[in-house]
């Protein structure tokens, strides 16, 4: 199957993920949207790895997954910390540094 269809799917998923980051105010949902964008990029990597007949793309996707897991740990720790001090998970409420 031609990789174009996979690329189109990855494009749609990436756009929806960036839409979630731009439009949603809940920090958790915005964070999940970031994960969605990473997954879309992974899909493109795997599709290209198959197109070229080399496994390097799969290795890169694997590393992306590891980094995403580390990122989730740190990001959720920050969200929990903000929630503990501000009693809110909305990105609008963490605006004390704004002029």
């Amino acid at each position, binding site marked *: *199957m031609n990789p174009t269809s996979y690329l189109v799917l990855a494009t749609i998923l990436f756009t929806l993920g960036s839409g979630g980051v731009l439009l949603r105010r809940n920090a958790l949902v915005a964070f999940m949207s970031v994960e969605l964008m990473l*997954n879309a990029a992974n899909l493109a990597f795997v599709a290209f790895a198959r197109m070229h007949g080399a496994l390097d793309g799969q290795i890169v996707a694997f590393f992306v997954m590891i980094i995403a*897991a580390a990122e989730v*740990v740190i990001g959720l720790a920050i969200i929990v910390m903000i929630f503990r001090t501000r009693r809110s998970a909305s990105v609008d409420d963490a605006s004390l540094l704004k002029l």
Partner: protein
Amino acid sequence: MNLLAAVATQAGDSPAGSTGSTTGEEILFWILAPLAVLGAAGLVFARKAVHGALFLAVTMVSLAFLYIALEAPFLGVVQMVVYTGAVMMLFLFVIMLVGVDASDSRVETIRGQRVGAGLALLGVIILLMTVAGRAALPDPVGTAQAAPDGNVYAIADLLFGRYVWVFEVVAAVLITAAVGAMVLTHRERTSRRLTQREMSEKRFRDADPQQAAGQPPPGVYARHNAVDTPALLPDGTPAETSISPVLIARGAARSADEFTIDLRQLGDEEGSDAAPTEPSDDSTSGMSGEATPGAAEGNDGEAGTTDGGEAR
């Protein structure tokens, strides 16, 4: 599962020179791709974070199947275990911690942000679609030649061969992340931790002396062998404090008044026909006779069957 196995064998067994354009893969793609897009759209448009997380899990699972169809069974399994197993559970855990009911406010804080974001997204999707659509991509070569012994062996070869340095760096990143999470969620103590002796002394000094020996536990009676029933004090009245405040807040507990009425009825029944209808009451616990207000005068001394008796 049959479909997955079929696709996996098909993808694994297809020779290197084949076009890879198999109908099984196409069917799988056209089932999974709409599911994945549906899940992603659900994440963006669901009002509650929990629903968004569940929608995202659908997308992740669909992508895992697509990886397996794309001759990457190892990545498919990792996707399933790491993303839908660990990451999504972590997300759900934090959502539960932060509050399930916390839904987004629909108020636009920056004026025109939604319109601007919509235009930008339109631009992104047009750009990417044009690139993906106009690129003349060749048919896939397939990874059979690159992975003669199977996908996992080939990945291990690369991971511990050419990419071993990246692997080490990633290990350092993971350890840093773990330490970082601990540092971020660490809370500095503002006062010294009390010892057990100090806590015990504090309880006797500050609290109600009647409660110093501990609060009475909920009662266990023949009628209600449950924690929603209050304990009885030596004078036969129910002890309101013996029920967990959580149960009272939920409305699941029987209030002391209700229970007193029950007791009175029970006492009347037993008084009239000497409890022939409920023989199990007397045989199992013997409490119903003592607990009735009528018998309460005589049992001040032996009412120690409930701990409520010790509180007074």
